[in-house]
Each structure stands twice: as structure tokens, then as C-alpha cells.
């Protein structure tokens, strides 16, 4: 009978972008079980709805997380607009989706860099983040901020992107394409990267379905759910949209799904920039959510499906605002994928759910 030891992993670990703690139960070098613990960055942001009215709370919502920042401001705005029955102009919806897809590109490039760092390929990490800088420059040019850009609010977006700037954005993304092809070749075709990722941390389709896994993590196991296919916002105007899936359910499949999603996002941006209608970008908002009104909405963040719920109580402060982030529902999936792996693969598997713990804990 092999001896069992318990090793703590995190909350500080070089591979983790955010703190999560795992107690790994090991038999020699094999992980038998993992018990997660979160709560290191719980800031009680959901309680702040009592103190900041519904127009100001968007600034709190976008600071839930740095990487998914625009997604949260979009989800919040979308939910409160549905709660109050506000229709935003079409141009605002297009701009929101363009910024959101750019957010997806930057988030996946960040994740690819961290993944490369996790298996020791530091120069690939640096190159991924160098390409990501171009996307951050686009954000700064169009909104004024690199990471948290306060672009969306209840009623629309705060500033417009001129058509010449849109053409500039598409040109930057086109210039990214050849270097990105080289980068993705290194991730998907390199022998040492593949041998670190293939067959590691497998989650079967049935397991993923029972655990309710979402996002690229779930799609890599064969689940086809992608909230963008529901056609909210400007996504309904796309000529076609098919979620990117893979079948193997291992780390390599998750990497493959995210690599292809970057290309898919660039295509979406190109299509929407060509089709964007002219018009105003916001509508004035008056009044407050009615008492007892409630609304749920979902959004496809880079990490998966994000659920927002807002409830009004007649005053300008919301009664309740709830964010259920993709990482919250992927943590049980991660814990299941960890069972049976080697200790050296633990950082890689933890990273493949793209953990955004600050979102999860708020």
C-alpha cells in the first residue's frame, strides 16, 4: 500500500494568475484527489450594490476582474437594460461585441503565454504577450484604458469608434495573423509541447456534462454549448457562427480550442466592422428599476458562460446583483481532471480551466 501525503498547492504559485489553494492527496507522484479552497480575494463586491447606484455600479462590475473586465461591464449593462426595458442602438451593440471579441483575443493570448510558461517555454510566453500588447494598444486608442476601459454603461457605450479607426483595428489584426500562425504552430505542432499536453488531464464528455463544464474547457471535451450561438446583441447579425469544439478532452484539446477561437474572434471582428450601421451610440437613461423586477442574462466570456442576475427594488440601488462566473462551475471539473495525474502536471491542468478566481469570488 503506497503511502499517502498531502501537499498544498497555492495560493501562491508561479503559474497561477490568481490565488487558488488545492490540497493534493498524493500516492508517490500520482494525485489521487484534490480538495479546492478559494476565498483569498473575496472582496464582497456584490454587497456594494447597496452603496453605489445602478449607473455607478458598472465601474464596480468591471473591476471584478482585470482580464474579463469588459465582459463584466457588458453583462451588467445588458442585464440592467433588460431589467428596465431599455433598447440600446444597434451601433452600440456592434461596438460592444467588437470590444468583447478583442477582449477574448487578448485573454486567450494571455492564457497561451501562461500555458507556455507552465511547461517551461518562456520565450513562447514572451512572444504571446508581445502580440497581446498590440490588442491592448487598440483598447487604449479607442477607449483610453488598456485593461479596464470603462467603455460600456447602462444605455449604450460611452464613446464611439470612427470608421477609420475600425479599419485600423482590422489592419492590426491582419498584421497579427502571420506571427500568430507561427505562435500557434509552436503550441500545436511542437513535439515537446505536445508530449506535455496530450493525454494529460482527460475529462470525458459524460463527466463534463454531469459537472456542467462551460467554455473552452467544456467544449474541448465535446460539449457544444456556446452562449454566442443564442444570438444576443450583435451576434444575431453574423452570417454564421459555430462553436469551436474538440473531442479528446485533454490539455492539448483545450489549447487547440482556444487557439482556434482567437482566429474565430478575428473573423467576427472583421465581419462586424464591415457591417456596422451608423447611428447614435447611447440612449439617455432615466428612472430606476421597478420593485420586484428581476432579470437573468448570460454572456460568453473568454472563460465560458457567465450568468448575471439583477433584481430591482424601486430605488436607484439594485436589490441584488449576482455574477456566476465560468470558473466557479469549472472548479469541480478541474478537481475531477486532476485525479490520476502526475504531480508535475498539476500546474498545467489547473491552468487549462483558465482560472479567474477574482471573478469567482468577487
Amino acid at each position, binding site marked *: 500500500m503506497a503511502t499517502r501525503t498531502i501537499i498544498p498547492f497555492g495560493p501562491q504559485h508561479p503559474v497561477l494568475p490568481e490565488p487558488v489553494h488545492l490540497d493534493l492527496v498524493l500516492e508517490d507522484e500520482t494525485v489521487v484527489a484534490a480538495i479546492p479552497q478559494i476565498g483569498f480575494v473575496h472582496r464582497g463586491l456584490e454587497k456594494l450594490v447597496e452603496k453605489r447606484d445602478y449607473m455607478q455600479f458598472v465601474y464596480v462590475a468591471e473591476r471584478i476582474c482585470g482580464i474579463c473586465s469588459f465582459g463584466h461591464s457588458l453583462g451588467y449593462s445588458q442585464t440592467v437594460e433588460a431589467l428596465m426595458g431599455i433598447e440600446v442602438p444597434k451601433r452600440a451593440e456592434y461596438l460592444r461585441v467588437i470590444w468583447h471579441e478583442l477582449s477574448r483575443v487578448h485573454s486567450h493570448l494571455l492564457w497561451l503565454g501562461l500555458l507556455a510558461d507552465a511547461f517551461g517555454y518562456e520565450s513562447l510566453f514572451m512572444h504571446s504577450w508581445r502580440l497581446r500588447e498590440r490588442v491592448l494598444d487598440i483598447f487604449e486608442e479607442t477607449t483610453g484604458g488598456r485593461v479596464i476601459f470603462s467603455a460600456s454603461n447602462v444605455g449604450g457605450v460611452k464613446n464611439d469608434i470612427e470608421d477609420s479607426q475600425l479599419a485600423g483595428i482590422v489592419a492590426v489584426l491582419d498584421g497579427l495573423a502571420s506571427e500568430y500562425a507561427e505562435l500557434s504552430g509552436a503550441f500545436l505542432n511542437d513535439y515537446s509541447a505536445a508530449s506535455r499536453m496530450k493525454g494529460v488531464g482527460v475529462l470525458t464528455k459524460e463527466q463534463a456534462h454531469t459537472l456542467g463544464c462551460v467554455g473552452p474547457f467544456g467544449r474541448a471535451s465535446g460539449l457544444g454549448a456556446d452562449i454566442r450561438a443564442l444570438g444576443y446583441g450583435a451576434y444575431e447579425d453574423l452570417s454564421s457562427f459555430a462553436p469551436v469544439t474538440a473531442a479528446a478532452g485533454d490539455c492539448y484539446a483545450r489549447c487547440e480550442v482556444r487557439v482556434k477561437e482567437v482566429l474565430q474572434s478575428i473573423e467576427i471582428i472583421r465581419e462586424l466592422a464591415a457591417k456596422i450601421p451608423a447611428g447614435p451610440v447611447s440612449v439617455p437613461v432615466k428612472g430606476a428599476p421597478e420593485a420586484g423586477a428581476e432579470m437573468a442574462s448570460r454572456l460568453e466570456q473568454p472563460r465560458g458562460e457567465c450568468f448575471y442576475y439583477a433584481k430591482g427594488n424601486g430605488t436607484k440601488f439594485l436589490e441584488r446583483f*449576482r455574477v456566476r462566473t465560468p470558473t466557479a462551475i469549472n472548479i*469541480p471539473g478541474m478537481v475531477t481532471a486532476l485525479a490520476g495525474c502526475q504531480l508535475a502536471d498539476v500546474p498545467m491542468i489547473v491552468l487549462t480551466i483558465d482560472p479567474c478566481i477574482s471573478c469567482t469570488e468577487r
Partner: protein
Amino acid sequence: MRCEKQVFTAIELPALLASAQAYERSGARFVQCCAAPGADASGADGALELTYSFDTGDTLENLRITVAPGDDVPSITSLFPAAFVFENEMHDLYGISVSGISVDFAGKFYTVAAPSPMTSDTAAFEVRGKEGSE
């Protein structure tokens, strides 16, 4: 903004497990469960509303259960193992007692400074801020 198809159905607490089982058999996906203050004009003081959300493929179906603070809520982790994250959170933040969670952290999931912070008055919290910031 066109919001997706969603329904909110009010059910009683004893019917929770049976409804969850029906969703599990039909292959629906568990989305989340959360608590909210049950503040409506006729609601009892301190009553809380639980919302359990399921994705049936074309609709977002939400179950709404009104509970009093002392009520015991059965866990659905036997059907949807991923629910343990949210049930522990409901317990830590709202003080709702959920029994039978597969991975029960007994209040230590989010190590919060005061018990059940979401239902307490904000003024009761000691604000530890820096001088000069508001």
C-alpha cells in the same frame, strides 16, 4: 436588448429535490444557485429567496424558493456535483444551512470576517481604510 428566453417558477422547499431530479433526468445543465433578499411588500422580514437555474437547451429555467433564515435546504450535489461551490457560498454569505453537501467546508469556504455578511447591515462593519481615501 433582446434577452434570452427565461422562466421563473416558484416552488416550495420540499419540492426542490424532485424538481432537480426531473432536470437531471432530462439532461439539463445546472447553471447556478444563489440567494437574494426576499424583499417584497408582503414578504416576511429576513426571508430569503433562492434561485436555482438550469439550462434545458433552449430556455433558462429558474426555480424560485422562499425560505426563512432557519430553514434547512437539502443539497442537490447528489444529482449535480458541481453545486457544492454555490451551496457553500450560500451558507457562508447568507447563513442558509444546506445539509448533505458532498464537499462541505462548514463555513470555511470564504473565510469571511463576520458571519453571513450579505444579510448584515453594512454600518455594522468596521471600515479599515487609509486616511485620505473615502
